């Protein structure tokens, strides 16, 4: 029987201060990236026009940009999309002289510009997205509402299934994951598209899932280990669920890896965001959710925790070596 971390007895709670520093560094990097780069919303959210083309030969990016400018489209982004024969053109601002609502005219102007620069018939338009600013704004608002409402709903469910202390700790951990994931998106300069929002919401589910597995064990152990302190109960619960975490995260990561490598350009950002979130979810379940629960129970102890042995003042925090 192969078993990773079969009898692990790491003092996770003991090293939480170090973990706080690590998370502060990660969040800080994310915040700096966010401030410097800002959020790179896709045209779905900003409104604008996206045209994906495939060509018969690599194109001269500068020439295409100049050709588009001649058609009254300024500041269009041209990027190769996966290969040297596929490109994406993003025009966030409308064609000169047309109002911002008129993404149709912009799309037509892009096609006209490509006809001039590349020649008719040397390229095919594979995909067009033309989103008016009003629709984009609505979508952005709806995305934010969806993220916050899902948070709230999960908090309610956890309060009902566990108790509010657990629910709050789980939501704090998930909020941490949300923050690091947004930082990651900014750091990697990923475009925030609908698919990335889908990844963020899935991340919320996945992160909670992971926290719940540990909390479920804590809930069980609270009744079993009456002679121990809460710190010990938390440590033991995390250690007991370690093999499961390794396995599940492993299978999730391999499928995400397969998606990132094989599933194409549209799915890649989704896979990358989820890939990162697996790590942050694992980290936060151990180093955020459990310590926050400890803090909350310290202030407002629940019935089950009151039955435990009271901790020696300040003892749990200083012990950095494995508990025997």
């Amino acid at each position, binding site marked *: 029987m192969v078993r990773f971390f079969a009898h692990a007895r790491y003092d996770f709670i003991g090293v939480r201060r170090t973990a706080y520093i690590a998370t502060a560094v990660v969040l800080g990097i994310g915040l700096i990236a966010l401030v410097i780069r800002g959020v790179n919303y896709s045209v779905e959210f900003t409104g604008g026009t996206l045209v994906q083309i495939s060509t018969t030969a690599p194109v001269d990016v500068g020439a295409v940009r100049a050709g588009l400018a001649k058609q009254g489209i300024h500041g269009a982004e041209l990027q190769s999309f996966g290969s040297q024969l596929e490109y994406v053109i993003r025009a966030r601002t409308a064609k000169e002289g047309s109002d911002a609502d008129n993404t149709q005219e912009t799309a037509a102007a892009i096609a006209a510009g490509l006809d001039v620069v590349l020649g008719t018939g040397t390229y095919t338009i594979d995909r067009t997205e033309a989103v008016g600013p009003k629709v984009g704004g609505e979508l952005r608002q709806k995305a934010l509402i969806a993220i916050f409402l899902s948070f709230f709903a999960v908090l309610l469910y956890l309060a009902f299934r566990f108790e509010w202390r657990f629910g709050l700790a789980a939501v704090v951990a998930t909020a941490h994951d949300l923050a690091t994931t947004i930082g990651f998106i900014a750091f990697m300069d990923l475009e925030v598209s609908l698919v990335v929002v*889908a990844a963020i919401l899935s991340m919320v589910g996945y992160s909670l899932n992971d926290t*719940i*597995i540990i909390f479920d064990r804590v809930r069980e152990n609270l009744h079993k280990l009456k002679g121990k302190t809460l710190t010990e109960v938390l440590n033991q619960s995390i250690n007991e669920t370690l093999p499961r975490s390794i396995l599940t995260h492993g299978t999730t990561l391999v*499928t995400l890896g397969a998606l990132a490598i094989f599933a194409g350009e549209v799915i890649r950002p989704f896979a990358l965001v989820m890939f990162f979130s697996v790590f942050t979810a694992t980290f936060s379940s151990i180093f955020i959710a459990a310590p926050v629960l400890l803090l909350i129970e310290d202030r407002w102890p629940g019935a089950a925790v009151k039955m435990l042995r009271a901790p020696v003042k300040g003892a749990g925090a200083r012990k950095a070596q494995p508990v025997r």
Partner: protein
Amino acid sequence: MAPITKRLLGIGALVALSIFYLFPREQNIRERGEDGVMRDVRVTRVPLKRGLDLMGGMHLALELDQAKRVSTDVERDIDLALTVLRKRIDEFGVAEPVIQKSGGDRIVVELAGISDPARAKSIVQKSAFLEFRITDKTQALDNAMPAIDRALRGLGVQAGDGNRQAPSAVEQLLGTDSAAGDSSKVETGPAVLSALVAASGQLPGEYLVLESAYPRVDSMLSLPEVQQQLPRTVELRWANAPVSLGVESYRSLYALEDRPIITGTSLIDASAQLDPITNGPIVIFELNRSGARRFGAETGRHVGDHMAIVLDDFVQGQPPIIQSRIDARGQITLSNRSLQEAQDLALTLKAGSLPVPLKIVEERQVGPSLGRDSIRQGLTAGVVGTLLVIAIMVGYYRMAGVLAVAALGLYILFALGGLAMLEATLTLPGLAGLVLSVGIAVDANVLIFERIREELILGKTVRLAVDEGFKHAMSAIVDSNVSTVITALFLFQFGTGPVKGFAITLIMGIVASMITAIFVTRTFFLLWLQRRPALETLSI
């Protein structure tokens, strides 16, 4: 009946149900044949709907274009437009179109697998507002011309007076040099409009403008100061296409009576044909009874006059002379246009006009080859991901892993069957969700197996350890999955097309994985233990 038999029957029923929903079946699809005639075609295929991003197609969100015509009752006009669009698209012939209201003021149209998106867009957007109007015989435009020129020069004074607040449209009209010109020029000023517009002399109310001057004249004419100078009984309309006279290209401008003698609402049928004499495309139309009566009376009264056919505010061709009374049937001659355009016009006329023009506020369009690529890439990722998961599970859990993999096979079947049952649409993100859910689906099995291992380490017998393992893992499985379903439900609520597809596959995946982990794997374990009752150690 032994409990194990019941369980096997239950699994058999689920498998049968999934296969039933996934079984290829015959469907009716309305398609336009090679000859342009609509017919129902029966095809046999697996009833899993593919989204537009996988099969190629177009998604449009439309709103009333109130800049062109103000709607007094948005709700009513949207409903009217919806009916008109349904009729048009039905005639156009697209397999399984989606045409629905979204919110109170938006219409979503989804057309899968169309080959000519520009044409589909024009059919959806064409207002198809048809009118017949008599051309003006009173020379109203000629009479108003001096006043119009004065009005324009008046505006020019403002622009030339160094008034920086002057409307930019006027500056554009007059060109930079005249706008910057000295004020003395204004007094004697050039004949602004009359220099650009000349009567054609061919028929009353027809004027010619150089094609190059057309945009400039058009913006001049739309100025309210100019509009005021025209009598109320006359409206100006442009021809829909330029005409060539000698080396120059001209655009005709028509002065028309303000009151149409009849509109497209009286139309009951329209069809496209080739004119036997000119071989050009024509649209033959037929009016309803009251429309025919009115049309007959009006054309009878106007014999010898010219009648302009105005479609969406543009005059179609040169207005023909009314030679005699016309009743229920008439024809529209389309010069320089293809038969297909004539067919599209007949189609839109027959389906009725839109109450208010529609504007496209969102368009997503995916070519069929990109869709095929996406399916191929998604499947590759799915196969690779699943194989890796199988390798991990069997490598780590041995025999128990084999059971979990068998359950995983059923999981995929159940998830797809469930999607077919819900008539959900499989999109590219949905495909990714399915692949990801394979990785997450084994979580329930992992939780159970790890628990069984713990129980074995505690020294419990194999049988007891399995029972306890399943029992204790249950609460974690349920709680974690419910929270994922909650977030997926919000995603479903918020998302559009492709993302909705992701949410639905995620939800279906979770439900299917819970069924397989709790029920199917358990049964497999029971079978395994039953065949070897004396099992002392477990391959887990």
